[in-house]
Protein backbone atom coordinates (compact mmCIF):
# COMPACT_ATOMS: atom_id res chain seq x y z
CA UNK A 1 0.00 0.00 0.00
CA UNK A 2 2.71 2.39 1.07
CA UNK A 3 4.71 1.66 -2.05
CA UNK A 4 1.73 2.24 -4.30
CA UNK A 5 0.99 5.54 -2.60
CA UNK A 6 4.62 6.62 -2.92
CA UNK A 7 4.89 5.80 -6.58
CA UNK A 8 1.65 7.61 -7.36
CA UNK A 9 2.95 10.59 -5.39
CA UNK A 10 6.15 10.48 -7.40
CA UNK A 11 4.33 10.30 -10.71
CA UNK A 12 2.07 13.15 -9.64
CA UNK A 13 5.12 15.22 -8.77
CA UNK A 14 6.81 14.47 -12.07
CA UNK A 15 3.64 15.32 -13.95
CA UNK A 16 3.38 18.60 -12.07
CA UNK A 17 7.01 19.39 -12.88
CA UNK A 18 6.41 18.64 -16.54
CA UNK A 19 3.35 20.87 -16.53
CA UNK A 20 5.37 23.68 -15.00
CA UNK A 21 8.12 23.30 -17.57
CA UNK A 22 5.64 23.38 -20.46
CA UNK A 23 3.86 26.33 -18.88
CA UNK A 24 7.08 28.29 -18.45
CA UNK A 25 8.11 27.44 -21.98
CA UNK A 26 4.92 29.00 -23.29
CA UNK A 27 5.08 31.91 -20.90
CA UNK A 28 8.71 32.83 -21.50
CA UNK A 29 8.30 34.64 -24.87
CA UNK A 30 5.52 36.76 -23.40
CA UNK A 31 7.64 37.50 -20.35
CA UNK A 32 10.57 38.41 -22.57
CA UNK A 33 8.41 40.63 -24.76
CA UNK A 34 7.07 42.53 -21.75
CA UNK A 35 10.57 42.84 -20.31
CA UNK A 36 12.02 44.13 -23.57
CA UNK A 37 9.23 46.65 -23.93
CA UNK A 38 10.64 48.50 -20.90
CA UNK A 39 14.15 48.70 -22.36
CA UNK A 40 15.40 51.40 -24.67
CA UNK A 41 16.02 50.30 -28.24
CA UNK A 42 19.75 50.49 -27.54
CA UNK A 43 19.59 48.45 -24.34
CA UNK A 44 17.38 45.83 -25.94
CA UNK A 45 20.15 44.41 -28.10
CA UNK A 46 22.93 44.60 -25.45
CA UNK A 47 23.69 41.27 -23.73
CA UNK A 48 24.85 42.96 -20.49
CA UNK A 49 21.36 44.36 -19.95
CA UNK A 50 19.67 40.98 -20.35
CA UNK A 51 17.84 41.04 -17.02
CA UNK A 52 19.14 44.10 -15.17
CA UNK A 53 18.54 47.38 -16.89
CA UNK A 54 17.15 50.85 -16.33
CA UNK A 55 13.39 50.49 -17.04
CA UNK A 56 11.82 53.15 -19.19
CA UNK A 57 8.32 54.02 -20.39
CA UNK A 58 9.72 55.74 -23.44
CA UNK A 59 8.50 53.05 -25.85
CA UNK A 60 4.93 53.24 -24.60
CA UNK A 61 4.86 57.02 -24.69
CA UNK A 62 6.31 56.96 -28.16
CA UNK A 63 3.65 54.49 -29.24
CA UNK A 64 0.69 56.49 -28.01
CA UNK A 65 2.10 59.82 -29.18
CA UNK A 66 3.50 58.93 -32.58
CA UNK A 67 1.48 55.94 -33.69
CA UNK A 68 -1.99 56.69 -32.43
CA UNK A 69 -2.29 53.38 -30.59
CA UNK A 70 -5.84 54.10 -29.48
CA UNK A 71 -7.16 54.34 -33.01
CA UNK A 72 -5.75 50.93 -33.87
CA UNK A 73 -7.03 49.50 -30.61
CA UNK A 74 -10.49 50.95 -31.25
CA UNK A 75 -10.55 49.38 -34.70
CA UNK A 76 -9.50 46.04 -33.26
CA UNK A 77 -12.28 46.16 -30.68
CA UNK A 78 -14.94 47.27 -33.16
CA UNK A 79 -14.07 44.72 -35.84
CA UNK A 80 -13.63 41.80 -33.42
CA UNK A 81 -16.83 42.56 -31.48
CA UNK A 82 -19.05 43.01 -34.52
CA UNK A 83 -17.52 40.09 -36.41
CA UNK A 84 -18.23 37.90 -33.36
CA UNK A 85 -21.80 39.16 -33.02
CA UNK A 86 -22.54 38.58 -36.71
CA UNK A 87 -20.85 35.18 -36.68
CA UNK A 88 -23.11 34.15 -33.78
CA UNK A 89 -26.18 35.67 -35.44
CA UNK A 90 -25.57 33.47 -38.48
CA UNK A 91 -24.04 30.53 -36.64
CA UNK A 92 -26.70 29.96 -33.98
CA UNK A 93 -29.67 29.44 -36.35
CA UNK A 94 -27.43 27.44 -38.67
CA UNK A 95 -26.14 25.11 -35.96
CA UNK A 96 -29.66 24.85 -34.52
CA UNK A 97 -31.05 23.67 -37.82
CA UNK A 98 -28.30 21.12 -38.31
CA UNK A 99 -28.39 19.83 -34.73
CA UNK A 100 -32.14 19.38 -34.41
CA UNK A 101 -33.34 18.88 -37.98
CA UNK A 102 -30.47 16.99 -39.53
CA UNK A 103 -30.79 15.76 -43.07
CA UNK A 104 -28.73 13.23 -44.94
CA UNK A 105 -26.31 15.89 -46.09
CA UNK A 106 -25.75 17.56 -42.72
CA UNK A 107 -22.47 15.78 -42.12
CA UNK A 108 -21.30 16.68 -45.63
CA UNK A 109 -22.24 20.32 -45.14
CA UNK A 110 -20.25 20.40 -41.93
CA UNK A 111 -17.24 18.85 -43.63
CA UNK A 112 -17.56 21.27 -46.50
CA UNK A 113 -17.59 24.20 -44.09
CA UNK A 114 -14.44 22.92 -42.46
CA UNK A 115 -12.81 22.34 -45.82
CA UNK A 116 -13.02 26.08 -46.58
CA UNK A 117 -10.48 26.52 -43.78
CA UNK A 118 -8.06 24.39 -45.78
CA UNK A 119 -7.90 26.85 -48.67
CA UNK A 120 -4.60 28.75 -48.50
CA UNK A 121 -5.50 32.39 -47.88
CA UNK A 122 -2.76 33.52 -50.25
CA UNK A 123 -4.60 31.84 -53.11
CA UNK A 124 -7.37 34.42 -52.97
CA UNK A 125 -5.26 37.40 -51.92
CA UNK A 126 -5.21 39.13 -55.30
CA UNK A 127 -8.87 38.53 -56.18
CA UNK A 128 -9.81 39.81 -52.75
CA UNK A 129 -7.62 42.88 -53.04
CA UNK A 130 -8.84 43.85 -56.53
CA UNK A 131 -12.47 43.04 -55.78
CA UNK A 132 -12.60 45.03 -52.57
CA UNK A 133 -10.78 47.97 -54.16
CA UNK A 134 -13.11 48.10 -57.13
CA UNK A 135 -16.13 47.79 -54.85
CA UNK A 136 -14.81 50.66 -52.75
CA UNK A 137 -14.69 48.49 -49.65
CA UNK A 138 -10.93 48.38 -49.27
CA UNK A 139 -9.75 49.65 -45.88
CA UNK A 140 -13.25 49.88 -44.40
CA UNK A 141 -14.27 48.45 -41.04
CA UNK A 142 -17.27 46.91 -42.75
CA UNK A 143 -15.01 44.83 -44.96
CA UNK A 144 -12.83 43.69 -42.06
CA UNK A 145 -15.90 42.74 -40.05
CA UNK A 146 -17.30 40.70 -42.94
CA UNK A 147 -13.97 39.01 -43.63
CA UNK A 148 -13.32 38.17 -39.98
CA UNK A 149 -16.85 36.85 -39.62
CA UNK A 150 -16.57 34.65 -42.71
CA UNK A 151 -13.22 33.12 -41.86
CA UNK A 152 -14.37 32.23 -38.36
CA UNK A 153 -17.87 31.07 -39.27
CA UNK A 154 -16.90 27.41 -39.87
CA UNK A 155 -15.31 27.13 -36.43
CA UNK A 156 -18.22 28.96 -34.80
CA UNK A 157 -20.80 26.69 -36.43
CA UNK A 158 -18.84 23.55 -35.59
CA UNK A 159 -18.49 24.53 -31.97
CA UNK A 160 -22.13 25.56 -31.58
CA UNK A 161 -23.26 22.41 -33.35
CA UNK A 162 -21.30 20.31 -30.86
CA UNK A 163 -22.81 22.16 -27.90
CA UNK A 164 -26.36 22.06 -29.27
CA UNK A 165 -26.03 18.32 -29.88
CA UNK A 166 -25.73 17.87 -26.12
CA UNK A 167 -29.19 19.30 -25.52
CA UNK A 168 -31.78 16.51 -25.44
CA UNK A 169 -33.94 16.65 -28.54
CA UNK A 170 -37.07 16.15 -26.42
CA UNK A 171 -36.63 19.53 -24.77
CA UNK A 172 -36.71 21.22 -28.16
CA UNK A 173 -39.69 19.08 -29.15
CA UNK A 174 -41.44 19.94 -25.89
CA UNK A 175 -41.03 23.57 -26.90
CA UNK A 176 -42.64 22.87 -30.25
CA UNK A 177 -45.54 21.13 -28.55
CA UNK A 178 -45.87 24.06 -26.16
CA UNK A 179 -46.57 26.37 -29.06
CA UNK A 180 -43.25 28.11 -29.62
CA UNK A 181 -42.17 29.10 -33.11
CA UNK A 182 -38.60 28.60 -34.28
CA UNK A 183 -37.31 32.00 -33.15
CA UNK A 184 -39.00 31.65 -29.80
CA UNK A 185 -37.38 28.28 -29.40
CA UNK A 186 -33.93 29.65 -30.11
CA UNK A 187 -34.48 32.61 -27.79
CA UNK A 188 -36.35 30.95 -24.94
CA UNK A 189 -34.89 27.46 -24.84
CA UNK A 190 -31.77 27.00 -26.94
CA UNK A 191 -29.80 30.11 -25.95
CA UNK A 192 -30.44 29.85 -22.19
CA UNK A 193 -29.58 26.14 -22.23
CA UNK A 194 -26.45 26.44 -24.35
CA UNK A 195 -25.35 29.71 -22.76
CA UNK A 196 -22.00 28.36 -21.55
CA UNK A 197 -21.18 26.93 -24.95
CA UNK A 198 -22.24 30.08 -26.77
CA UNK A 199 -20.07 32.19 -24.44
CA UNK A 200 -17.04 29.94 -25.03
CA UNK A 201 -17.62 30.10 -28.76
CA UNK A 202 -17.97 33.88 -28.71
CA UNK A 203 -14.80 34.24 -26.66
CA UNK A 204 -12.77 32.04 -28.95
CA UNK A 205 -14.16 33.75 -32.03
CA UNK A 206 -13.30 37.14 -30.53
CA UNK A 207 -9.72 36.01 -29.84
CA UNK A 208 -9.31 34.65 -33.36
CA UNK A 209 -10.63 37.92 -34.79
CA UNK A 210 -8.35 39.97 -32.58
CA UNK A 211 -5.28 37.93 -33.52
CA UNK A 212 -6.03 37.72 -37.22
CA UNK A 213 -3.16 39.26 -39.15
CA UNK A 214 -3.21 38.06 -42.72
CA UNK A 215 -6.28 39.87 -44.00
CA UNK A 216 -6.31 42.74 -41.54
CA UNK A 217 -2.79 43.68 -42.62
CA UNK A 218 -3.42 43.29 -46.33
CA UNK A 219 -6.90 44.74 -46.71
CA UNK A 220 -6.31 47.91 -44.68
CA UNK A 221 -4.12 50.97 -44.83
CA UNK A 222 -5.24 53.46 -42.19
CA UNK A 223 -9.00 53.78 -41.64
CA UNK A 224 -9.69 50.19 -40.66
CA UNK A 225 -6.19 49.22 -39.52
CA UNK A 226 -6.12 47.03 -36.42
CA UNK A 227 -3.41 46.34 -33.88
CA UNK A 228 -2.00 43.62 -36.12
CA UNK A 229 -1.34 46.33 -38.66
CA UNK A 230 0.29 48.49 -36.00
CA UNK A 231 2.77 45.75 -35.12
CA UNK A 232 3.45 45.03 -38.74
CA UNK A 233 3.98 48.72 -39.42
CA UNK A 234 6.80 48.90 -36.91
CA UNK A 235 9.27 47.47 -39.32
CA UNK A 236 11.24 50.59 -39.97
CA UNK A 237 13.55 50.78 -43.01
CA UNK A 238 16.48 51.36 -40.66
CA UNK A 239 15.94 47.96 -39.08
CA UNK A 240 14.01 46.61 -36.15
CA UNK A 241 13.66 48.60 -32.96
CA UNK A 242 13.14 45.80 -30.50
CA UNK A 243 12.13 47.95 -27.56
CA UNK A 244 9.52 49.79 -29.54
CA UNK A 245 8.28 46.64 -31.25
CA UNK A 246 7.93 44.86 -27.91
CA UNK A 247 5.94 47.72 -26.48
CA UNK A 248 3.55 47.68 -29.43
CA UNK A 249 3.22 43.91 -29.25
CA UNK A 250 2.62 43.98 -25.51
CA UNK A 251 -0.07 46.60 -25.94
CA UNK A 252 -1.65 44.52 -28.71
CA UNK A 253 -1.77 41.20 -26.90
CA UNK A 254 -2.35 42.72 -23.46
CA UNK A 255 -6.13 43.06 -23.67
CA UNK A 256 -6.58 39.56 -25.00
CA UNK A 257 -4.33 38.01 -22.36
CA UNK A 258 -6.28 39.78 -19.63
CA UNK A 259 -9.56 38.68 -21.17
CA UNK A 260 -8.31 35.12 -21.46
CA UNK A 261 -7.15 35.16 -17.85
CA UNK A 262 -10.59 36.05 -16.59
CA UNK A 263 -12.37 33.57 -18.84
CA UNK A 264 -10.02 30.63 -18.39
CA UNK A 265 -12.76 28.20 -17.48
CA UNK A 266 -14.91 29.08 -20.47
CA UNK A 267 -11.92 28.92 -22.77
CA UNK A 268 -10.83 25.48 -21.68
CA UNK A 269 -14.39 24.31 -22.19
CA UNK A 270 -14.46 25.89 -25.61
CA UNK A 271 -11.17 24.43 -26.74
CA UNK A 272 -12.11 20.93 -25.71
CA UNK A 273 -15.20 21.31 -27.92
CA UNK A 274 -17.67 20.36 -25.25
CA UNK A 275 -15.95 17.09 -24.53
CA UNK A 276 -15.59 18.01 -20.87
CA UNK A 277 -18.87 18.70 -19.18
Amino acid at each position, binding site marked *: MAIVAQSSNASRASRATLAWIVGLLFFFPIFWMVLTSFKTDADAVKPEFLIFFQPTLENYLNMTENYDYWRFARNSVITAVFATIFALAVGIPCAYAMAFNPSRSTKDVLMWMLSTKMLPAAAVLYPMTFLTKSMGLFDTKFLIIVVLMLINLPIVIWMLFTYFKEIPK*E*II*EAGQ*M*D*GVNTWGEIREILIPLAWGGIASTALLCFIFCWNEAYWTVRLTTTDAATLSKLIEGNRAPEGLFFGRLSAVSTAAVGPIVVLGWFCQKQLVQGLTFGAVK
Partner: protein
Amino acid sequence: MGRIQLESVTKSFGDVQVIPPLDLTIEDGEFAVFVGPSGCGKSTLLRLIAGLEETTSGSIMIDGQDVTQVSPSKRGLAMVFQTYALYPHMTVRKNIAFPMRMAGLSEAEQEKRIMAAAESLNLTDYLDRKPGQLSGGQRQRVAIGRAIVRDPEAFLFDEPLSNLDAALRVGMRLEITEMHERMKTTMIYVTHDQVEAMTMADKIVVLRAGVIEQVGSPLELYRAPRSLFVAGFIGSPKMNFIEGEEADKRDAKTIGIRPEHIDVVEDGGIWQGKVGVAEHLGSDTFFHVHGTNLADTLTVRTVGDVALRHGDTIQLRPREDELLRFDDAGLRIA
Protein backbone atom coordinates in the same frame (compact mmCIF):
# COMPACT_ATOMS: atom_id res chain seq x y z
CA MET B 1 -63.21 18.74 -28.98
CA GLY B 2 -60.52 16.36 -30.06
CA ARG B 3 -61.49 13.77 -32.61
CA ILE B 4 -58.37 12.48 -34.30
CA GLN B 5 -58.49 10.69 -37.62
CA LEU B 6 -55.64 9.09 -39.52
CA GLU B 7 -56.31 8.29 -43.16
CA SER B 8 -53.93 5.95 -44.99
CA VAL B 9 -51.00 7.47 -43.14
CA THR B 10 -47.58 6.06 -43.99
CA LYS B 11 -44.13 6.79 -42.70
CA SER B 12 -40.79 5.81 -44.14
CA PHE B 13 -37.32 6.51 -42.85
CA GLY B 14 -35.23 6.43 -45.98
CA ASP B 15 -36.14 3.23 -47.80
CA VAL B 16 -37.58 1.58 -44.72
CA GLN B 17 -41.33 1.82 -44.37
CA VAL B 18 -42.08 1.74 -40.65
CA ILE B 19 -45.79 2.47 -40.97
CA PRO B 20 -47.59 0.92 -43.93
CA PRO B 21 -50.92 2.62 -44.87
CA LEU B 22 -52.86 2.94 -41.64
CA ASP B 23 -56.37 4.15 -40.82
CA LEU B 24 -57.48 4.95 -37.32
CA THR B 25 -60.06 7.11 -35.61
CA ILE B 26 -59.90 8.20 -32.01
CA GLU B 27 -63.17 9.68 -30.82
CA ASP B 28 -63.43 12.87 -28.82
CA GLY B 29 -62.88 12.24 -25.12
CA GLU B 30 -61.57 8.76 -25.64
CA PHE B 31 -58.59 7.31 -23.80
CA ALA B 32 -56.71 5.41 -26.50
CA VAL B 33 -53.64 3.36 -25.74
CA PHE B 34 -51.13 2.32 -28.40
CA VAL B 35 -49.48 -0.85 -27.24
CA GLY B 36 -47.01 -3.26 -28.77
CA PRO B 37 -43.50 -4.59 -28.41
CA SER B 38 -40.60 -2.18 -28.86
CA GLY B 39 -40.01 -1.24 -32.46
CA CYS B 40 -43.64 -1.73 -33.45
CA GLY B 41 -44.05 1.90 -34.50
CA LYS B 42 -46.27 3.05 -31.65
CA SER B 43 -44.07 6.00 -30.71
CA THR B 44 -43.62 6.95 -34.35
CA LEU B 45 -47.39 6.94 -34.77
CA LEU B 46 -47.77 9.26 -31.77
CA ARG B 47 -45.08 11.56 -33.11
CA LEU B 48 -46.86 11.68 -36.45
CA ILE B 49 -50.03 12.81 -34.69
CA ALA B 50 -48.00 15.35 -32.71
CA GLY B 51 -46.38 16.62 -35.88
CA LEU B 52 -42.87 15.94 -34.62
CA GLU B 53 -42.44 13.57 -37.55
CA GLU B 54 -43.68 14.36 -41.04
CA THR B 55 -46.01 11.87 -42.67
CA THR B 56 -44.70 10.32 -45.85
CA SER B 57 -48.23 10.16 -47.25
CA GLY B 58 -51.81 10.19 -46.05
CA SER B 59 -53.53 12.73 -43.87
CA ILE B 60 -54.13 13.47 -40.22
CA MET B 61 -57.26 15.33 -39.15
CA ILE B 62 -58.08 16.89 -35.82
CA ASP B 63 -61.78 17.75 -35.50
CA GLY B 64 -62.22 17.37 -39.22
CA GLN B 65 -59.42 19.80 -40.04
CA ASP B 66 -56.51 18.51 -42.03
CA VAL B 67 -53.39 19.21 -39.96
CA THR B 68 -50.96 17.07 -41.96
CA GLN B 69 -48.92 20.12 -42.98
CA VAL B 70 -49.48 22.07 -39.74
CA SER B 71 -46.51 22.53 -37.43
CA PRO B 72 -46.66 20.85 -34.01
CA SER B 73 -46.94 24.20 -32.26
CA LYS B 74 -50.22 24.95 -34.07
CA ARG B 75 -51.97 21.61 -33.66
CA GLY B 76 -53.23 22.40 -30.17
CA LEU B 77 -51.99 19.14 -28.71
CA ALA B 78 -50.02 18.71 -25.50
CA MET B 79 -47.40 16.04 -25.04
CA VAL B 80 -45.82 14.37 -22.04
CA PHE B 81 -42.48 12.77 -22.80
CA GLN B 82 -40.84 9.69 -21.34
CA THR B 83 -37.82 11.77 -20.32
CA TYR B 84 -40.12 14.53 -18.96
CA ALA B 85 -38.34 17.10 -21.19
CA LEU B 86 -38.73 19.91 -18.69
CA TYR B 87 -36.87 23.15 -19.30
CA PRO B 88 -33.96 22.75 -16.87
CA HIS B 89 -33.23 26.48 -16.71
CA MET B 90 -36.73 27.42 -15.56
CA THR B 91 -38.44 26.94 -12.22
CA VAL B 92 -41.45 24.65 -11.94
CA ARG B 93 -43.72 27.70 -12.05
CA LYS B 94 -42.08 28.96 -15.25
CA ASN B 95 -42.14 25.51 -16.81
CA ILE B 96 -45.86 25.25 -16.26
CA ALA B 97 -46.43 28.85 -17.36
CA PHE B 98 -44.39 28.46 -20.52
CA PRO B 99 -47.09 27.26 -22.95
CA MET B 100 -49.51 29.87 -21.59
CA ARG B 101 -46.93 32.62 -21.97
CA MET B 102 -46.39 31.51 -25.56
CA ALA B 103 -50.14 31.60 -26.12
CA GLY B 104 -50.24 35.15 -24.74
CA LEU B 105 -52.49 34.53 -21.74
CA SER B 106 -52.77 37.28 -19.14
CA GLU B 107 -50.57 37.07 -16.04
CA ALA B 108 -53.58 36.69 -13.80
CA GLU B 109 -55.03 33.87 -15.84
CA GLN B 110 -51.63 32.16 -15.94
CA GLU B 111 -51.29 32.37 -12.16
CA LYS B 112 -54.80 31.02 -11.66
CA ARG B 113 -54.16 28.01 -13.85
CA ILE B 114 -50.72 27.36 -12.37
CA MET B 115 -52.20 27.26 -8.88
CA ALA B 116 -55.04 24.98 -9.97
CA ALA B 117 -52.65 22.60 -11.70
CA ALA B 118 -50.15 22.66 -8.84
CA GLU B 119 -52.89 21.90 -6.37
CA SER B 120 -54.27 18.95 -8.30
CA LEU B 121 -50.78 17.55 -8.84
CA ASN B 122 -49.44 18.21 -5.32
CA LEU B 123 -46.79 20.58 -6.59
CA THR B 124 -47.70 23.69 -4.58
CA ASP B 125 -44.59 23.46 -2.39
CA TYR B 126 -42.23 22.99 -5.31
CA LEU B 127 -43.21 25.85 -7.60
CA ASP B 128 -40.00 27.78 -7.08
CA ARG B 129 -37.65 24.84 -7.51
CA LYS B 130 -35.80 23.91 -10.64
CA PRO B 131 -36.47 20.51 -12.25
CA GLY B 132 -33.03 19.28 -11.18
CA GLN B 133 -34.13 19.52 -7.53
CA LEU B 134 -37.16 17.26 -8.01
CA SER B 135 -37.61 13.50 -7.92
CA GLY B 136 -38.62 11.57 -11.01
CA GLY B 137 -42.25 11.38 -9.97
CA GLN B 138 -42.39 15.11 -9.25
CA ARG B 139 -40.79 15.89 -12.60
CA GLN B 140 -43.40 13.85 -14.38
CA ARG B 141 -46.12 15.74 -12.49
CA VAL B 142 -44.62 19.01 -13.67
CA ALA B 143 -44.64 17.69 -17.24
CA ILE B 144 -48.30 16.79 -16.83
CA GLY B 145 -48.99 20.19 -15.27
CA ARG B 146 -47.38 21.89 -18.23
CA ALA B 147 -49.67 19.87 -20.50
CA ILE B 148 -52.96 20.46 -18.70
CA VAL B 149 -52.76 24.24 -18.27
CA ARG B 150 -52.99 24.67 -22.02
CA ASP B 151 -56.40 23.08 -22.18
CA PRO B 152 -55.36 21.14 -25.30
CA GLU B 153 -57.51 19.35 -27.86
CA ALA B 154 -55.84 16.13 -26.84
CA PHE B 155 -53.05 14.85 -24.64
CA LEU B 156 -50.31 12.69 -26.04
CA PHE B 157 -48.34 10.53 -23.61
CA ASP B 158 -45.17 8.84 -24.80
CA GLU B 159 -44.38 6.07 -22.29
CA PRO B 160 -44.62 8.60 -19.46
CA LEU B 161 -44.24 6.15 -16.62
CA SER B 162 -41.45 3.90 -17.82
CA ASN B 163 -38.74 5.90 -16.03
CA LEU B 164 -40.53 5.64 -12.67
CA ASP B 165 -40.22 2.85 -10.13
CA ALA B 166 -42.97 0.28 -9.84
CA ALA B 167 -44.81 1.76 -6.85
CA LEU B 168 -44.88 5.26 -8.31
CA ARG B 169 -46.01 3.87 -11.62
CA VAL B 170 -49.15 2.39 -10.14
CA GLY B 171 -49.92 5.66 -8.37
CA MET B 172 -49.39 7.81 -11.45
CA ARG B 173 -51.43 5.39 -13.54
CA LEU B 174 -54.38 5.99 -11.27
CA GLU B 175 -53.83 9.74 -11.30
CA ILE B 176 -53.76 9.93 -15.07
CA THR B 177 -56.89 7.77 -15.29
CA GLU B 178 -58.65 10.01 -12.77
CA MET B 179 -57.50 13.06 -14.66
CA HIS B 180 -59.11 11.66 -17.78
CA GLU B 181 -62.36 10.94 -15.94
CA ARG B 182 -62.39 14.52 -14.69
CA MET B 183 -61.37 16.34 -17.86
CA LYS B 184 -62.94 14.10 -20.50
CA THR B 185 -60.27 15.22 -22.95
CA THR B 186 -59.00 12.92 -25.66
CA MET B 187 -55.85 11.14 -24.55
CA ILE B 188 -53.48 9.01 -26.56
CA TYR B 189 -51.10 6.99 -24.50
CA VAL B 190 -48.18 4.93 -25.76
CA THR B 191 -46.81 2.07 -23.71
CA HIS B 192 -45.21 -1.31 -24.08
CA ASP B 193 -46.74 -2.39 -20.79
CA GLN B 194 -49.96 -4.26 -21.42
CA VAL B 195 -51.03 -3.84 -17.79
CA GLU B 196 -51.05 -0.07 -18.28
CA ALA B 197 -52.98 -0.54 -21.49
CA MET B 198 -55.57 -2.82 -19.86
CA THR B 199 -56.11 -0.66 -16.79
CA MET B 200 -56.26 2.76 -18.42
CA ALA B 201 -57.69 2.45 -21.89
CA ASP B 202 -61.16 2.92 -23.33
CA LYS B 203 -59.68 1.69 -26.56
CA ILE B 204 -56.52 -0.29 -27.10
CA VAL B 205 -54.70 -0.24 -30.40
CA VAL B 206 -52.35 -3.20 -30.67
CA LEU B 207 -49.53 -2.57 -33.11
CA ARG B 208 -47.04 -4.94 -34.62
CA ALA B 209 -44.43 -3.86 -37.17
CA GLY B 210 -46.36 -0.69 -37.93
CA VAL B 211 -49.59 -2.55 -38.63
CA ILE B 212 -52.67 -2.39 -36.43
CA GLU B 213 -53.33 -5.94 -35.25
CA GLN B 214 -56.55 -5.12 -33.46
CA VAL B 215 -58.51 -2.21 -32.03
CA GLY B 216 -60.94 -2.69 -29.21
CA SER B 217 -61.80 -2.26 -25.56
CA PRO B 218 -59.51 -4.01 -23.07
CA LEU B 219 -62.00 -6.79 -22.43
CA GLU B 220 -62.75 -7.30 -26.11
CA LEU B 221 -59.06 -7.85 -26.71
CA TYR B 222 -58.82 -10.12 -23.71
CA ARG B 223 -61.82 -12.26 -24.56
CA ALA B 224 -61.80 -12.14 -28.31
CA PRO B 225 -58.30 -11.55 -29.63
CA ARG B 226 -58.22 -11.50 -33.39
CA SER B 227 -54.87 -13.25 -33.68
CA LEU B 228 -52.28 -15.27 -31.85
CA PHE B 229 -50.16 -12.15 -31.49
CA VAL B 230 -52.87 -10.19 -29.65
CA ALA B 231 -53.81 -13.22 -27.60
CA GLY B 232 -50.21 -13.65 -26.50
CA PHE B 233 -49.56 -9.97 -25.91
CA ILE B 234 -52.62 -9.11 -23.83
CA GLY B 235 -52.96 -10.76 -20.45
CA SER B 236 -50.54 -11.57 -17.68
CA PRO B 237 -49.45 -14.30 -17.19
CA LYS B 238 -49.58 -15.08 -20.88
CA MET B 239 -52.12 -17.29 -22.57
CA ASN B 240 -51.05 -20.91 -23.05
CA PHE B 241 -50.68 -22.04 -26.64
CA ILE B 242 -50.95 -25.69 -27.53
CA GLU B 243 -50.23 -27.25 -30.90
CA GLY B 244 -50.39 -30.82 -32.11
CA GLU B 245 -52.88 -33.52 -31.27
CA GLU B 246 -54.98 -31.51 -28.82
CA ALA B 247 -55.32 -28.73 -31.39
CA ASP B 248 -56.07 -31.16 -34.23
CA LYS B 249 -58.86 -32.72 -32.18
CA ARG B 250 -60.50 -29.29 -32.12
CA ASP B 251 -59.92 -28.54 -35.83
CA ALA B 252 -57.29 -25.87 -35.22
CA LYS B 253 -53.61 -25.31 -35.83
CA THR B 254 -53.16 -23.84 -32.38
CA ILE B 255 -55.43 -23.62 -29.38
CA GLY B 256 -55.07 -21.00 -26.72
CA ILE B 257 -56.27 -21.04 -23.15
CA ARG B 258 -55.75 -18.49 -20.40
CA PRO B 259 -54.21 -19.66 -17.11
CA GLU B 260 -57.43 -19.02 -15.18
CA HIS B 261 -59.42 -21.20 -17.57
CA ILE B 262 -57.61 -24.35 -16.59
CA ASP B 263 -59.03 -25.92 -13.42
CA VAL B 264 -56.93 -27.95 -11.03
CA VAL B 265 -58.88 -31.10 -10.13
CA GLU B 266 -58.30 -33.92 -7.64
CA ASP B 267 -58.77 -36.62 -10.24
CA GLY B 268 -60.25 -37.13 -13.66
CA GLY B 269 -58.19 -34.40 -15.27
CA ILE B 270 -57.86 -34.33 -19.04
CA TRP B 271 -54.26 -33.16 -18.89
CA GLN B 272 -51.67 -33.93 -16.31
CA GLY B 273 -48.12 -32.91 -15.56
CA LYS B 274 -45.61 -32.09 -12.85
CA VAL B 275 -45.53 -28.83 -10.97
CA GLY B 276 -42.37 -26.87 -11.72
CA VAL B 277 -42.45 -23.51 -10.01
CA ALA B 278 -45.43 -22.75 -7.80
CA GLU B 279 -45.99 -19.06 -7.11
CA HIS B 280 -48.09 -18.65 -3.99
CA LEU B 281 -49.42 -15.11 -3.93
CA GLY B 282 -52.00 -15.72 -1.23
CA SER B 283 -55.01 -14.62 -3.21
CA ASP B 284 -53.91 -16.66 -6.22
CA THR B 285 -51.52 -19.44 -6.98
CA PHE B 286 -49.73 -19.79 -10.29
CA PHE B 287 -48.43 -23.20 -11.26
CA HIS B 288 -45.92 -23.66 -14.03
CA VAL B 289 -46.60 -27.19 -15.14
CA HIS B 290 -44.15 -29.30 -17.13
CA GLY B 291 -44.29 -32.70 -18.75
CA THR B 292 -47.80 -32.37 -20.13
CA ASN B 293 -46.76 -33.30 -23.69
CA LEU B 294 -48.73 -30.22 -24.80
CA ALA B 295 -46.28 -27.38 -24.46
CA ASP B 296 -43.01 -26.75 -22.61
CA THR B 297 -44.83 -25.07 -19.81
CA LEU B 298 -48.50 -24.64 -19.04
CA THR B 299 -49.34 -21.80 -16.73
CA VAL B 300 -52.31 -22.42 -14.47
CA ARG B 301 -53.95 -19.98 -12.14
CA THR B 302 -56.07 -21.04 -9.22
CA VAL B 303 -57.85 -18.90 -6.70
CA GLY B 304 -56.61 -19.11 -3.14
CA ASP B 305 -53.80 -21.22 -1.83
CA VAL B 306 -53.62 -24.73 -3.26
CA ALA B 307 -51.26 -27.02 -1.44
CA LEU B 308 -49.28 -28.42 -4.35
CA ARG B 309 -45.52 -28.17 -4.26
CA HIS B 310 -42.65 -28.53 -6.66
CA GLY B 311 -42.57 -32.00 -8.23
CA ASP B 312 -46.14 -32.93 -7.35
CA THR B 313 -48.35 -34.42 -10.05
CA ILE B 314 -51.16 -32.10 -11.04
CA GLN B 315 -54.45 -32.94 -12.78
CA LEU B 316 -55.83 -30.29 -15.10
CA ARG B 317 -59.16 -29.76 -16.81
CA PRO B 318 -59.48 -26.94 -19.41
CA ARG B 319 -62.81 -25.18 -19.72
CA GLU B 320 -63.77 -26.15 -23.24
CA ASP B 321 -65.99 -23.11 -23.81
CA GLU B 322 -63.11 -20.74 -23.03
CA LEU B 323 -60.70 -22.36 -25.48
CA LEU B 324 -59.66 -20.18 -28.40
CA ARG B 325 -58.86 -21.77 -31.74
CA PHE B 326 -56.40 -20.33 -34.27
CA ASP B 327 -55.86 -21.30 -37.91
CA ASP B 328 -52.64 -21.74 -39.90
CA ALA B 329 -52.30 -18.00 -40.42
CA GLY B 330 -52.56 -17.37 -36.69
CA LEU B 331 -56.04 -15.84 -36.95
CA ARG B 332 -58.74 -16.86 -34.53
CA ILE B 333 -61.45 -19.20 -35.77
CA ALA B 334 -64.76 -17.77 -34.61
